[in-house]
């Protein structure tokens, strides 16, 4: 028991007690306490176990830089948040906090024995220790390492909270509400512009919260800001990142500081702020020192001890030694002394220290050791004493103490500056990178700008030690258990770039992203490499500044609001007829219509048989549709599509194949010429927007001289496909003004007329191989016409069918689906669609590519049919195909299955596949190795039903 509550002082409310639990034990603190300060006040020094070695760890810092004291806060089912930093968690009644990464308890961690095994966890251990045998990595090593080395557990149940989001605009955004930020906000507000001041802490004030001399000013300034209409002050709000053109994203925590039963409304709110000017006043973070035993609980930053004493009224120890290489350590020691904390000694590696500091220490009767360094710490779970030695050399002398404060100098918080691609300059006085140039309207003020009078110090954090580096247990990155010697080892093994050293050692990774370790790691690497820091560079800062909940990033975009769901005008009818849906490119489509206890296979078999024997009705409204109008419409389509369009007579349809300039199929569809200057184009459901964009591109940028206008009409037309031998009989009674006889209205024709009294564009087309019509009517009449067709269909035994049946029927005919039977590397010839390429056309999009050497080379994958030897075996789509199933692994793969179904019509399975040299393999037996055994199949033409096409002409 070392830390304790001071008799007075601090910004806590000593009249209001708060009860909470830590690892299940009842604890208490005062209103205004953080979890760290409340626990320290009760003598808790041990807060967590380290990442790899499970070493006992205590508090290092008093803010978001804290790498050790990570806790999980449990606010009820689905509200469990891991990896929160104890100094940043405000306590409230009922708070349930649990320490992490310990087994079974914080105090007795059985895994800490791997301290003994630490030789197995050197730099790069992920990459080298567990390499062999390879199979063991997945099954043995990785699960064990994940169990041993880890942070808190991810939540396992759904997050019941909701998260708000907003946009904001202002003339000036100030990030950080310490004295510099508050001054900047007041100055900007005086000009009358909109000002937003954001700060991550419970209350604004920053460093001033730890300096009672500034409290009167702080209260006055806070009141002034609160009274100004043009100022918005957001506390408990973290600026996660700076993005282009002063777009700053910040997350405001609205309820986490409240007791669970008091928390109402959204948990967090994500602010997307566009600012004219951004002022960064993010302060600086103190650097730890690197020496043997610097991770024993009770060794912490001097600035943290000062904050705990002056802001929270908590002494971190009864007998405290300060190890400084910087003037600020002396100042903090004197402030602590004044607050009633017993400072036993100040040790400073420097011989020359400003005389006013030395006099101050002498007046306070604090022993001073100049030119000395701490060389070791005694104590395991808590500091019991330190050994100090002159210049870190020799045996040294012991000092009794229960806390050691490190003052290693300061690192300006340049994260957001760097997000904005601001450049940095090495500053010898700071021993750190400070902001230099930016192209944004962005500036830094106060400590993060390097503009802060805080005294002098040595730049490097590694203290001299009697032991050689490779024997030392001096930690650089506490959260990742990276020692100084790991950095030495990385350099020894050939790593030179700091980005590589970071990834090899994991220095600066994980939840704190190196807030306390980056600069020390860099300077140690610099020392080992004998190269200046500026040549080694700094790792890249990326958002978020501190770990951020996914909930806030998602905001309202979840569940039904995750993305728009497009429904056709017939969707409600499908729902009331028991449709099972599938989503296709944001459209909700009826997949099949089960009756009674039918499963999908049974329903699809019935739907297929009915379409082939009688008639089926299908909602094809999702087809992409583009109206192409203008005197050059035919010329335009002739250039876009592979087939000839100029010769197409009005009243006729044509199957169009669209390539990219690279020669590969990107879309297809049947289109109709309604008039010399008007086409009704259809595209695939998923390709509509892409095709329109591509056509607009050519029209606007390549052929802007053409008189053509493109209009998306996908949602303007409802499309009802009526397919089957009785299709004509179903629609005939409903039609006006169109002669449906085969002579007057042949296959691939289009007519305009009326159905059920409303205008229609009637296509005679078939994606099933049966006699078929596609009835286009204005969307607002779609439901009415559908129901009329359905009622008429009942007289002929019609069935409503969904996309699954549509897929089976088209596969029986070998019709491709772009994106399923093609994959962006398939030419018309590969797909067996060479007939759709106009041989006489001088040019069309993609034509030149069809003559490229690799496109005309033999052995390309070609679309074929597959019939399994076992007619009931249905191949898995995506399954790989080989010629010899007995060849050694890795096998030579010839291609893959693209479409595969059970065909009720044929009473067997059918499949389509892309196979290398496929058309030359007709009749060959190929093999599809599967986990349950190899399936053999014969290569056939991709046409399984009615190859003559006679059924189309019914």
């Amino acid at each position, binding site marked *: 028991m070392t830390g304790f509550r001071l008799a007075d002082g601090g910004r806590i409310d000593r009249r209001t007690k708060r009860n909470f639990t830590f690892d299940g034990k009842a604890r208490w603190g005062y209103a205004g306490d953080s979890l760290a300060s409340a626990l320290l006040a009760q003598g808790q020094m041990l807060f967590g176990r380290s990442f790899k070695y499970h070493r006992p760890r205590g508090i290092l810092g008093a803010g978001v830089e804290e790498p050790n004291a990570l806790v999980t806060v449990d606010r009820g089912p689905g509200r469990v948040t891991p990896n929160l930093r104890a100094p940043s968690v405000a306590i409230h009644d009922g708070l349930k906090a649990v320490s992490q990464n310990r087994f079974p308890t914080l105090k007795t961690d059985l895994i800490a024995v791997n301290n003994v095994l630490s030789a197995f966890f050197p730099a790069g251990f992920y990459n080298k220790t567990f390499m062999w045998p390879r199979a063991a990595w997945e099954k043995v090593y990785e699960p064990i390492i994940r169990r041993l080395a880890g942070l808190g557990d991810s939540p396992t149940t759904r997050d019941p909270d909701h998260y708000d989001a907003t946009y904001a605009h202002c003339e000036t955004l100030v990030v950080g509400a310490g004295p510099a930020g508050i001054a900047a906000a007041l100055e900007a507000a005086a000009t009358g512009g909109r000002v937003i001041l954001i700060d991550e802490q419970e209350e604004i004030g920053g460093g001033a919260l730890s300096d009672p001399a500034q409290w009167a000013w702080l209260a006055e300034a806070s009141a002034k800001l609160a009274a100004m209409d043009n100022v918005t002050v957001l506390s408990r709000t973290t600026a996660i990142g700076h993005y282009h053109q002063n777009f700053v994203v910040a997350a405001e925590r609205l309820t986490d500081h409240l007791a669970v039963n008091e928390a109402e409304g959204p948990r967090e709110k994500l602010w997307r702020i566009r600012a004219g000017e951004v002022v960064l006043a993010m302060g600086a973070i103190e650097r730890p020192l690197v020496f043997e035993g610097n991770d024993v609980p009770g060794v912490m930053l001097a600035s943290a001890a000062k904050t705990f004493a002056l802001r929270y009224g908590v002494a971190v120890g009864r007998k405290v030694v300060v190890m400084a290489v910087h003037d600020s350590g002396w100042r903090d020691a004197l402030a602590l002394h004044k607050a009633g904390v017993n400072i036993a000694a100040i040790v400073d590696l420097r011989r020359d220290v400003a005389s006013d500091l030395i006099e101050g220490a002498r007046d306070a009767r604090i022993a001073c050791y100049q030119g000395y360094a701490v060389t070791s710490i005694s104590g395991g779970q808590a500091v019991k004493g330190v050994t100090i030695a002159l210049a870190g050399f020799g045996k040294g002398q012991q000092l009794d103490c229960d806390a050691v404060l490190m003052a290693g100098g300061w690192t300006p918080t340049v994260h957001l500056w760097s997000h904005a691609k601001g450049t940095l300059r090495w500053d010898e006085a700071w021993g750190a990178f400070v902001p230099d140039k930016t192209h944004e309207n962005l500036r830094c003020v106060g400590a993060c700008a390097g503009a802060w009078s805080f005294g002098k110090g040595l730049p490097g954090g590694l203290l001299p030690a009697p032991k050689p580096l490779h024997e030392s247990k001096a930690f650089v990155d506490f959260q990742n258990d990276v020692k100084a010697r790991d950095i030495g080892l990385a350099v020894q093994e050939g790593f030179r770039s700091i980005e590589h050293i970071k990834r090899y050692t994991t220095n600066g990774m994980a939840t704190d992203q190196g807030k306390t370790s980056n600069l020390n790691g860099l300077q140690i690497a610099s020392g080992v490499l004998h190269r200046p820091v500026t040549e080694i560079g700094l790792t890249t800062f990326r958002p978020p500044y501190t770990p951020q909940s996914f909930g806030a990033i998602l905001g309202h975009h979840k569940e039904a609001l995750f993305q728009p769901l497009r429904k056709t005008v017939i969707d409600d009818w499908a729902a009331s007829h028991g449709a099972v849906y599938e989503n296709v490119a944001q459209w909700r489509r009826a997949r099949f219509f089960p009756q009674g206890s039918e499963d999908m296979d049974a329903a699809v078999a019935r739907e297929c048989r009915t379409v082939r024997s009688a008639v089926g009705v299908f909602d094809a409204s999702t087809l992409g549709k583009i109206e192409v109008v203008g005197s050059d419409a035919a010329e335009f389509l002739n250039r876009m599509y592979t087939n000839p369009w100029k010769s197409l007579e009005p009243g006729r349809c044509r199957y169009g194949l669209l390539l990219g300039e690279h020669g590969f199929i990107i879309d297809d569809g049947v289109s109709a010429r309604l008039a010399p200057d008007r086409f009704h184009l259809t595209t695939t459901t998923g390709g509509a927007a892409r095709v329109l*964009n591509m056509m*607009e591109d050519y029209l*606007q940028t390549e052929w802007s001289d053409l008189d053509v206008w493109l209009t998306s009409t996908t949602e303007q037309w409802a499309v009802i496909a009526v397919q089957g031998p009785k299709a004509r009989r179903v629609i005939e009674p409903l039609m006006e003004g169109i002669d449906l006889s085969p002579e007057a209205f042949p296959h691939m024709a289009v007519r305009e007329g009326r159905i059920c009294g409303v205008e229609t564009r009637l296509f005679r087309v078939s994606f099933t191989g049966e006699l078929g019509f596609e009835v286009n009517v204005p969307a607002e009449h779609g439901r009415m016409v559908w129901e009329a067709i359905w009622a008429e269909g009942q007289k002929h035994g019609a069935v409503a069918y969904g996309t699954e049946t549509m897929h089976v029927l088209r596969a029986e005919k070998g019709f491709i689906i772009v994106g399923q039977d093609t994959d962006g590397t398939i030419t018309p010839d590969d797909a067996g669609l060479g007939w759709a390429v106009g041989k006489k056309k001088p040019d069309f999009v993609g034509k030149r*590519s069809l003559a*490229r*050497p690799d496109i005309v080379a033999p052995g390309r994958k070609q679309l074929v049919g597959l019939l399994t030897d076992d007619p009931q075996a249905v191949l898995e789509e995506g399954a790989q195909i080989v010629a010899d199933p007995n060849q050694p692994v890795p096998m030579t793969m010839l291609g893959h299955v693209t479409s595969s179904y059970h065909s009720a019509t044929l009473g067997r399975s059918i499949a389509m596949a892309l196979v290398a040299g496929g058309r030359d393999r007709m009749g060959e037996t190929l093999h599809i190795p599967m986990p349950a055994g190899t399936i053999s199949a014969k290569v056939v033409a991709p046409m399984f039903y009615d190859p003559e096409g006679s059924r189309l002409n019914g």
Partner: protein
Amino acid sequence: MLLIHCPYCEEARPEVEFAYGGEAHIARPVDPSTYSDEQWEEFLYIRSNPRGRHHERWRHSHGCGRFFNAVRDTVTDVFETTYKAGEARK
């Protein structure tokens, strides 16, 4: 999120309204059949990918729908200018 000035709408609008369209000023040849395989490969796939000033196409997809050209610095992402399709390279 970038703010992009549409030269047709004459307004700076957020990036989400726009779609990137690749490098600018790569005209489709009038008669591709006259191109050698190497020339055609160059047209299809070879791009300048500069560090610094980059001429590129954008489309104001969720606005006026027009394609236009821009000069953007690939290091800073700062737009130097945007101009209408068909105007000379800036």
